[in-house]
């Protein structure tokens, strides 16, 4: 397949073919992280900047490790330690960074569309590391990779997403990818956290978690987005936990080989109980491991070959 993209901005405009190509490429990279020498010289001399205007542990570390295992140089910039605190605009920051000739910029920003704007004004490859409540494409790809690894396929599965669908970029990106592959997707959560007209994306809505998880092949838990005012939409976290916290009882109602996913960070005891998070169905740490391989593949495809 001919990979022609300069940027990875959202899942919505990726074709099935492109997604599978990223997954197949990631397969080749997964083994590198298991070796004694966890490094290949492929992106020697390339520079990757991670520009994060929102906090992150997993995504940023994952990108940084991915870049380093490919021998690229990485520089991390956090908004709270950068000139953003002195009032510099995103555009100016980005243009200044580009003058230092990076090959790729991974950006996380609270404004939806921020990565798209950078992609328009910069020559560097732009990777969306999460833009507001819009999309988080690399998370959806690593989720798809994990589903394929555990289920042996990416289609015809019953997938339940539970939680704050309205504010979750992970939910949105996953809905686009999973529906594109023809899965049955059920969104479950309190009515205040389910956006109106979400059915137009081809998903079903079920407010009762016990009904939603019946025979599910995959259960994807989402976090309450406290930083986006998520707790305003529920009377109390106690009530939320009682109605939508995933317990072993729910997992037992699902398919025998159900997998439980969570993009992290988990609010244990709220949306997911310890018995499930640490139970045999949990693939949460596999997701993190696969994240490195998928991000290596993305960096490789975007900046590895001739521009």
């Amino acid at each position: 397949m001919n990979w022609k993209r300069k940027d990875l901005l959202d899942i919505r405009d990726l074709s099935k073919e492109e997604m599978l190509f990223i997954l197949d490429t990631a397969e080749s990279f997964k083994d590198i992280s298991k070796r004694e020498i966890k490094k290949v010289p492929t992106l020697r001399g390339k520079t990757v900047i991670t520009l994060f205007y929102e906090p992150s542990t997993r995504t940023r570390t994952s990108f940084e490790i991915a870049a380093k295992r490919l021998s690229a140089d990485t520089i991390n910039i956090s908004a709270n330690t950068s000139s953003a605190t002195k009032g510099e605009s995103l555009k100016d920051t980005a243009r200044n960074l580009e003058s230092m000739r990076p090959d790729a910029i991974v950006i996380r920003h609270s404004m939806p569309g921020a990565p798209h704007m950078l992609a328009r004004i910069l020559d560097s490859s732009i990777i969306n590391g999460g833009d507001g409540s819009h999309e988080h494409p690399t998370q959806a790809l690593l989720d798809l990779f994990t589903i394929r690894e555990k289920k042996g396929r990416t289609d015809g599965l019953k997938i339940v997403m539970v939680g704050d669908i309205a504010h979750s970029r992970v939910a949105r990106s996953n809905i686009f990818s999973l529906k594109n592959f023809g899965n049955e997707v059920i969104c479950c959560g309190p009515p205040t956290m389910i956006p109106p007209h979400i059915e137009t994306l081809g998903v079903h809505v079920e407010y009762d978690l016990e009904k939603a998880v019946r025979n599910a092949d995959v259960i994807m838990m989402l976090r309450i987005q406290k930083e986006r005012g998520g707790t305003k939409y529920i009377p109390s976290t106690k009530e939320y936990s009682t109605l939508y916290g995933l317990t072993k009882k729910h997992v037992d109602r699902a398919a025998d080989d159900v997998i439980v996913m969570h993009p992290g960070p988990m609010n244990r005891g709220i949306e997911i109980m310890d018995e499930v998070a640490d139970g045999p169905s949990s693939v949460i740490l596999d997701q993190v491991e696969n994240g490195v391989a998928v991000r290596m593949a993305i960096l490789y495809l975007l900046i590895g070959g001739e521009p």
Partner: protein
Amino acid sequence: MKKKVLLDKKAVDRTITRITHEILEKNEGSEALSLIGIRTRGVYLANRIQEKIRNVEGTSLPFGVLDITLYRDDISKLKWPEVKKTEIPFDVNNMTVILVDDVLHTGRTIRAAIDAIIDLGRPKKIQLAVLVDRGDRELPIHPDYAGIVCPVNENEEVLVRMSEIDGKEEVVIVKT
């Protein structure tokens, strides 16, 4: 496209048989030997050598598949370099690794392959077996076992066809 046949099916088989015996002779048997084929056609050649050694010595050598894409020195100039899996399911430390490829030309593929193997461990020795040595090296690399040595003009290409993927088996020279 004009082509000249260097080896036909039978000759390919005879050549691989000879390489196999040379490997066993030089290493005094098959102990601590392993085979690593370079994708794509080196893998099939290594497969044949493994089969022949099994027939002669009754042992099945550890076998690996190597994709050198990530170690290429021209990667930033390639259009869409596709990476395939490297699968080396054995410990290369203290092994004598026989690296197998179809055609040896500039030596750059072999340089990349050696680097890739050394990132996996420290083999005792690495030896190189190729079906065709077409000359014109750009690096100081020399095969330990060469099926045929055949200097070829710059505007010509040596094609090795293996029945497993090409449907027929031969070594030919074509004008490009």
